[in-house]
């Protein structure tokens, strides 16, 4: 917490404005933003997607693609130089060495064709030409060990695809910190990771960073800000709306938007939306359900082993009930949802829908079941066919199932209104909508079939907190109105606690704990559940501050 106010700031951003220009429109991405970064501090930059926080971060390294981007004005002062005015060769000596970056997607941030060791060494080749080869290799090994890559001497010769997502993000952290830069720009570095991995990465970043390294931490997660940042900047619609020390900003936010942002954060100590109602006979039941994926080897593709993605799962889901499924990635929670709706083939056990066995169902029979069962996917950007208008998308399923005989605009209007969208929107294409609106369209499309059960596979994980809260409210409202049952798959325990009536905790294809959300989350029995809960950032908890 002790940032030396006396020393001069590492970076000064003065009246920065950035805009994007395409043939038919211009967008102001950053509008007259000014701030400073002090030596050794962690500065949080928060805001919803589209607020300009990433563009601000990218501008500091002058990485905004131009065209279409354009720097309209302002200065970015670093060590007496204006980064916006540097010549390319001067810029290169700063990038990577004195200012570095960690990006969101660990899977694509490393070059797939070079070994991990070579990629780290390349940085030294470029920025530390005076070092000899031996010293470089030694330093690479030292840093890989530091970030927790076991057996670094051998593993440095491995390729990125041989590393897991968490390990890759560790490598990118090593790359960003190895040259001890004065400033690191971390753009949502853990958004793609599990909570448990996220906690490990935070710990690592705080441990690795030297006292003189400052970090700008770009995120939409207020819990993360609470854990890591000394100071916070809040951005909304390209402008800076609030700035302050983390603790005072959390306890007394001044700007209405900051208040809204803080309020929307789901918390583990939230109370469930309702108490457990009495349920009728189950609508969907699974008994000892298994989905194994064969591991094939050799030219005859003999099955040598199985990946037990789902290994003996049993549960009952009643009409109107919301069953949460939580776990890390790889725990089999997505496979469960996909198996229940027939996107994966189950290999053992049994599952029934309204008493009808779904095991080994033919394609034609699945189509009948799917009239009653819907599924919402994680990524609202790829779950709508971009070449169809909303009208066609909404009316196609009812036409296929014989509920409608033509693309009826009135029908589409009702669908849109039910999920809180404007009926006029039916003549547009999916790309004209925001993520939250698209997720609403996905929900409307499923509701058009009057389903009894919806499987939500990380349905709100890709959305901003404020949008997330709105979509969750919509789901709750629809649950009451249509007595819908949800299978709610999520890695976010706070969300699960808020909307679920029962929770399954999954690890390695098995259910390790089961019960009501208050039971499971407030007094977890299993060690795995406890570790999951501990990893969840919780704003306001002073013990969770890492800075």
């Amino acid at each position, binding site marked *: 917490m002790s940032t030396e106010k006396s020393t001069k700031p590492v970076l000064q951003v003065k009246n920065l404005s950035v805009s994007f220009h*395409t*043939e*038919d*429109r211009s967008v102001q991405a950053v509008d007259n933003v000014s701030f400073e970064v002090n030596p050794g501090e962690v500065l949080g930059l928060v805001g919803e997607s589209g607020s300009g926080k990433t563009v601000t971060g990218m501008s500091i390294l002058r990485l905004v693609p131009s065209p279409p981007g354009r720097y309209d004005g302002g200065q970015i002062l670093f060590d007496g130089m204006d980064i916006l005015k540097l010549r390319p060769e001067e810029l290169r000596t700063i990038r990577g060495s004195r200012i570095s970056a960690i990006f969101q997607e660990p899977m694509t941030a490393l070059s797939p064709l070079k070994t991990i060791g070579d990629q780290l060494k390349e940085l030294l080749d470029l920025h530390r030409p005076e070092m000899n080869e031996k010293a470089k290799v030694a330093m690479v090994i030292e840093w890989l060990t530091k970030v927790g890559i076991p057996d670094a001497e051998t593993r440095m010769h491995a390729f990125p695809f041989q590393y897991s997502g968490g390990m890759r993000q560790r490598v990118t952290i090593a790359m960003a910190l190895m040259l001890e830069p004065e400033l690191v720009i971390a753009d949502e570095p853990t958004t793609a990771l599990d909570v448990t991995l996220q906690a490990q990465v935070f710990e690592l970043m705080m441990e690795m960073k030297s006292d003189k390294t400052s970090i700008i931490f770009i995120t939409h997660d207020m819990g993360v800000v609470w854990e890591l940042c000394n100071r916070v900047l809040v951005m909304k619609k390209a402008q800076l709306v609030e700035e302050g020390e983390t603790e005072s900003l959390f306890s007394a936010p001044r700007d209405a938007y900051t208040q809204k942002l803080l309020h929307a954060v789901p918390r583990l100590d939230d109370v469930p939306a309702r108490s457990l109602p009495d349920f009728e006979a189950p609508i969907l039941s699974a008994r000892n359900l298994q989905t194994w994926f064969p591991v094939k080897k050799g030219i005859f593709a003999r099955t040598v082993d199985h990946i037990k993605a789902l290994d003996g799962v049993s549960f009952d889901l009643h009409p109107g009930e919301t069953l949460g499924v939580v776990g890390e990635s790889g725990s089999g929670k997505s496979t469960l949802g996909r198996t229940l*709706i*027939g*996107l994966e083939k189950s290999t053992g056990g049994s599952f029934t829908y309204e008493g009808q066995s779904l095991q080994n169902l033919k*394609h034609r029979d*699945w*189509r*009948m*079941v*799917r*009239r009653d*069962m*819907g*599924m919402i*996917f*994680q*990524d609202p950007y*790829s*779950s*709508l*066919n*971009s*070449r*169809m*208008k909303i*009208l066609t998308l909404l009316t*196609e*399923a009812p036409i*296929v*199932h014989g509920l409608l005989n033509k*693309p009826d*605009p009135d029908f589409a209007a009702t669908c849109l209104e039910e999920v809180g969208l404007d009926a*006029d929107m*039916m*003549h*547009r*294409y999916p*790309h*004209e909508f925001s993520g939250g609106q698209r997720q609403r369209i*996905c929900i409307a*499309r*499923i509701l058009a*079939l009057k389903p009894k059960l919806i499987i939500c596979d990380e349905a709100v994980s890709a959305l901003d907190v404020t949008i997330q809260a709105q979509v969750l409210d919509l789901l709750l409202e629809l649950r009451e109105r249509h007595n819908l049952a949800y299978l709610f798959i999520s890695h976010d325990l706070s969300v699960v606690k808020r909307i679920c009536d029962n929770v399954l905790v999954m690890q390695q294809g098995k259910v390790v704990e089961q019960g009501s959300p208050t039971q499971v989350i407030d007094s977890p029995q299993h060690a795995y559940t406890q570790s999951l809960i501990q990893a969840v950032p919780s704003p306001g908890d002073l013990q969770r501050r890492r800075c």
Partner: protein
Amino acid sequence: MKNRNLRSYSLGADAWRRLLRNRAAVSGLVLLILMVLACVAGPWFSAYTFEEMDLFSANEAPSAKHWFGTDELGRDLMTRTLVGGRISFAVALAATLVSLLIGVTYGGVSGYVGGRLDTLMMRIVDVLYALPFTLLVILLITVFERNLMLLFIAIGAVEWLTMARIVRGQVMGLRHQEFIEACQVLGYSQARILFRHLLPNVLGTVIIYVTLTIPSVMLLEAFLSFLGLGVQPPMSSWGSLIEDGRGAMEDFPWLMIFPGLALFVTLLALNFLGDGLRDALDPRRGGES
């Protein structure tokens, strides 16, 4: 802002309107229509026929009498170029149709269904690829009579193969995307998913590939004609005219320049049109509709 009371248009109608706003694509389309019209109707108004020899005016340079000049037998090159365009356009059309109808469907089914069917279908493609094309053509000529239809059969037999492979690859990449899985979960039939949802999304690649194939098909026709399968003298086509002109390039360059120019203009127009089509068919490009 968008006009909110807009009538609902299908993707086709939308695409057409977007195409019409693209200046390059419209000029490509107009140019192409003019070329086709000239080739179809031009020879009727010509003072010469494509086979009429006039040995006294052989190898004449372009003049008011013969706009494109004459060849070594004194035939009017402009008439021959226009008549040759008919064959070239017909060949291009046939190849496009075959690769669109057979290639796209075949590749789509193979990529979407996957598994054993995919393996079987792709091995068939491999076998057809491996057949020596020249041998196939010579076989066709010996077994059947010389016939223009044979030309189309020979070109058709090979032109869909690459398209099938490209479409298969694209479809395999798309079939696990969430919007396809969403369609499955909504209970759509496999055929509907393939033809209404998957294939429209590979159109961009398909169009690019078609515009790339057309010039090579036009030249392939020249090669086949040389082997004796395509058009026979005195008939002409752009490919054969260019081939003949190449031999006399040093002394009578116009023999190659004019048919070459016709081919060049057509391909340019096709490329503009192809690019415009690709953009028009993708609602994400070119701003609001």
